């Protein structure tokens, strides 16, 4: 078919990134891959991709301590126009697991508008990983994954349909745990 269009690279890249996010969110607990982009060193490609694909000047972004650098802020504002905010108002939050705790300061939505809640982007770090079974929407039967502090995820899923939605990011890898996912601990040591 004849094509008179020259598509902008930005629009092509964002579409491909978003499809990975759709897949990750649709199939919780599975790993999906994202492509490389130019970003501050401290941010993973996956975390940077989420921010750049979803944030604009209406988005409040919380950067936890190690991530709250001028380099990250400048990069974020230049590329998205997002507003760097505190925890309470954050639509998105980025950090390693420990630095995002406690979770209860993030907004979890209200019964009329449960979507007015924060999305947490958790960067890979040396947190204690505990084996869990997960099931729920997007999961065929059940899956086994590793989570930090499973009790916090269990509490979160009890808030359903309110709650927080999580993306775990590690270099090019992304895995989602939305609020709809039910978690149980398999490991007896826990």
């Amino acid at each position, binding site marked *: 078919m004849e094509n008179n269009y020259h*598509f902008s690279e930005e629009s092509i890249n964002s579409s491909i990134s978003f499809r990975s996010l759709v897949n990750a969110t649709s199939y919780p607990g599975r790993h999906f891959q994202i492509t490389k982009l130019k970003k501050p060193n401290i941010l993973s490609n996956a975390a940077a991709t989420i921010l750049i694909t979803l944030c604009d000047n209406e988005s409040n972004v919380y950067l936890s301590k190690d991530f709250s650098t001028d380099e990250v802020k400048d990069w974020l504002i230049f590329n998205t126009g997002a507003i760097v905010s505190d925890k309470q108002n954050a639509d998105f939050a980025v950090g390693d697991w420990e630095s995002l705790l406690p979770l209860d300061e993030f907004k979890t939505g209200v019964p009329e508008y449960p979507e007015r809640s924060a999305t947490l982007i958790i960067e890979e770090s040396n947190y204690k990983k505990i084996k869990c079974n997960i099931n729920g929407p997007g999961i065929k039967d059940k899956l086994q994954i590793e989570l930090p502090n499973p009790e916090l995820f269990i509490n979160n899923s009890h808030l359903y349909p309110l709650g927080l939605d999580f993306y775990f990011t590690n270099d090019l890898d992304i895995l989602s745990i939305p609020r709809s996912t039910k978690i149980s601990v398999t490991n007896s040591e826990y």
Partner: protein
Amino acid sequence: MNDMSKDKNIDIQIYNFAYLDENTKRMIRRALLKALCIPGYQVPFSSREMPMPYGWGTGGIQVTSACLIPKDVLKVIDQGADDTTNAVSIRKFFQKTANVAVTEKTSDASLIQTRHRIPETKLKEQQILVYQVPIPEPLRFLEPRETETRKMHALSEYGLMFVKLYEDIAKHGHIETAYAYPVKTNGNYVTDPSPIPKFDNPKMNNNPAIQLFGAGREQRIYAIPPYTNVKSLDFEDYPFEAMKANFKCSICGSSDSYLDEIIVSDDGKRSYICSDTDYCKEQTQLNSKEEDQ
């Protein structure tokens, strides 16, 4: 006046991949992801005017536009058919604005936009089915006010819906809803499946594909993730029953696909054919292969 086209950039190249600008896509994409996290919940989004009228699938078109990638293979159906006028028009729109490959084959498509049907061929993981939705609120015809229906969803207060269904049974011995038959998604939100015949309802349940719903005029997006429990509302003593014309397709002979009734002669003689044109073609081919053997 002659230089107006230069002035206003009416030049065709101004459009982004898949038409919508990046800011609009971001807003829709955020809504889509929240919708996937809260299955069946209607997320408000600031729908844009599209170059086709509200009611012509602008919600579905915006969702498709936000999801489409260059290597997608797109299928568009209306009433189950690829060759209905509006399906043709939407398919052309995306060929023009996204230059994506198109197909009529359900199994070859990576993204399917539909109005009023779910394909007969089973969908697969990572396929996306985008529904065009006219009225996303299943309670709307019982309670016209958004302020009220929003409260009902927040409180899971669905008594009104069950009363309506029950009254139908009391009056007619049947539930008087043949299409847009309400479902409960993930045991929580009562959801409008869009005006598909209730024959299609069971296909929504535990489907490996990603089901996204866009209502442009009403400014709502919702989703049913893969492998999600979707249950048509019913009563223990009046269980939900999928329904279709009790005939065989006069083209492919299929008796398990949804049929359209057509009038074939001036004296009103009826015939029945598959509403899903791709499925019908496939069955016909299978039949001829069998004959050959």
